[in-house]
């Protein structure tokens, strides 16, 4: 536990020292603000429901996470491998699992920080209207779970390469693939169902509608677990090469 904390603090510290954290957080909040403003503007012209505003906001936030999170995870292992500090980490008396979890949690803390700051927008809405906080909270739960999936996959890819650019690009590609595979779910039959179940975004849509289904929570949690497990295995296997 102490080891996880040590790795966690170090990684979080690195994020802030190397300005990545600031750029990512500012970019995320600024763009979310832009989407929020445009959704509000459209809402004031048309007579859509208030849910329209939050649905647009959270939908756009989920897409932004798709772009941003590979940038957060790319360095986690790739940088250590490139600079040789992996040798320090692997010869210290800590387990591979502790390293992986510590790094994951550091990315997770940044994700939570970003989402927490974005909570400003729903709070702003309460000043001028009466938004339903049920779907807002469930959307946030969905964003946390979805973001965690992105993080776990990003870490897994980062643990397989020395090159940060490769890590970011492959993570992004893989996430995009798992996203758009949902578009194929219009197909009738079993195949359509399978595509829809695999797709990361299909599950998120339930959360944004205010539905917290066990099926979807289990999907996200198992996705995270599998990716982190594979990361540990990938870190271990690097020693055998």
């Amino acid at each position, binding site marked *: 536990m*102490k*080891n996880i*904390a*040590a*790795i966690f*603090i*170090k990684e979080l*510290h*690195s994020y802030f*020292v*190397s300005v990545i954290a600031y750029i990512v957080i500012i970019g995320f909040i600024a763009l979310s603000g832009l989407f929020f403003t445009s959704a509000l503007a459209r809402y004031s012209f048309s007579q859509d429901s208030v849910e329209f505003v939050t649905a647009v906001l959270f939908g756009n936030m989920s897409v932004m996470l798709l772009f941003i999170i590979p940038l957060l995870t790319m360095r986690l292992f790739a940088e250590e491998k490139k*600079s*040789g*500090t*992996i*040798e*320090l*980490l*692997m*010869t*210290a*008396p*800590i*387990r591979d699992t502790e390293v992986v979890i510590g790094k994951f949690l550091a990315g997770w803390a940044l994700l939570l920080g970003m989402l927490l700051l974005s909570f400003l927008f729903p709070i702003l809405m309460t000043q001028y209207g009466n938004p339903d906080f049920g779907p807002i909270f469930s959307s946030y739960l969905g964003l946390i779970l979805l973001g965690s999936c992105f993080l776990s996959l990003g870490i897994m890819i980062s643990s397989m390469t020395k090159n940060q650019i490769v890590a970011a690009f492959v993570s992004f590609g893989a996430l995009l693939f798992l996203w758009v595979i949902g578009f194929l779910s219009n197909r009738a039959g079993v195949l359509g169902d399978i595509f829809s179940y695999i797709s990361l975004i299909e599950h998120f849509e339930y959360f944004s509608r205010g539905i917290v289904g066990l099926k979807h929570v289990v999907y996200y949690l198992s996705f995270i677990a599998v990716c982190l497990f594979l990361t540990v295995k990938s870190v271990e296997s690097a*020693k*055998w*090469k």
Partner: protein
Amino acid sequence: MIEVENLTKYYGNIRAIENVTFRVEKGEVVGFLGPNGSGKTTTMRILTCFMPASSGRATVAGYDVFTQSLDVRRHIGYMPESVPLYTEMKVTSYLKYVSKIRKIPRTQRNSRIDAVLESCGLTHMRNRIIGQLSKGYRQRVGLAQALIHNPDVLILDEPTIGLDPKQIVEIRELIKELGKEHTILLSTHILPEASMICGRIIVINNGSIAGSVTLSDGRITSVQSSEGEMTTLGESEELYVEAKAPAEDFSAAVAKIPNVIDVQTAGESADNHPRVYIDYELNTDIREELSNLIINNGWELLEMRPVEITLEEVFLRLTTE
């Protein structure tokens, strides 16, 4: 402290080391000497549990590197060849991080950090960002990192590479000092350095042990090759002499000097002057008698110097078939 038995490592089809066997006793400072690509780093990486061997076994401080990896890692301080530094961190925050993952209790952390900063000569650099330090100081931070948990065994891969002569001397002194309390295995391909710091040198070549050399105070006392052939040096002293004299008369006369054990001809110069190696008893001095002999016979002394076998010669003999 370190026991290695028949260690073999293949990277794919490439053999890095084969049947490497050696022991390092507690308190020894052992040098690992070999040409580039001879398997020094591979052996060290296996000992530090960075990667497993293909076959064979190794134990450090009584723990098996493969099955009791965490225990081994607790007892080892390791400085890899590419010094593992987080360049964006400050020296102290880096050492604090290492002290955490090295499981130093919270109450002792600061005093340990101060102690290693002091012994590595880094106290005045403690608040610098590592990325802005010179190569020599980075090397010291790497060493400080290896020492922070006061490990029983220190494994240092090329600790003085890339340093300037003054820094090299300082790091050597530091390693010598550390050798009083720690068991040290260090790799190098700098021969004088090995003979200065180490009590014993293991010569590795082409992935297998070529032999070992025992030293005392920088002088070679015995050499053991991997074929088991043991040469003990230091049973006699040796002089090289060149004189202007008839070769046979000269050798015969020299052999009669008291304490002389053996006279070997080393060939003749272009002018047919004899050149000889004279072995004589330890703790005696034949130079006075020898020069008197030459003068009394009307010969002339051209050169006389003591012969010491150097590590270079031994190294070349062990690493060339």
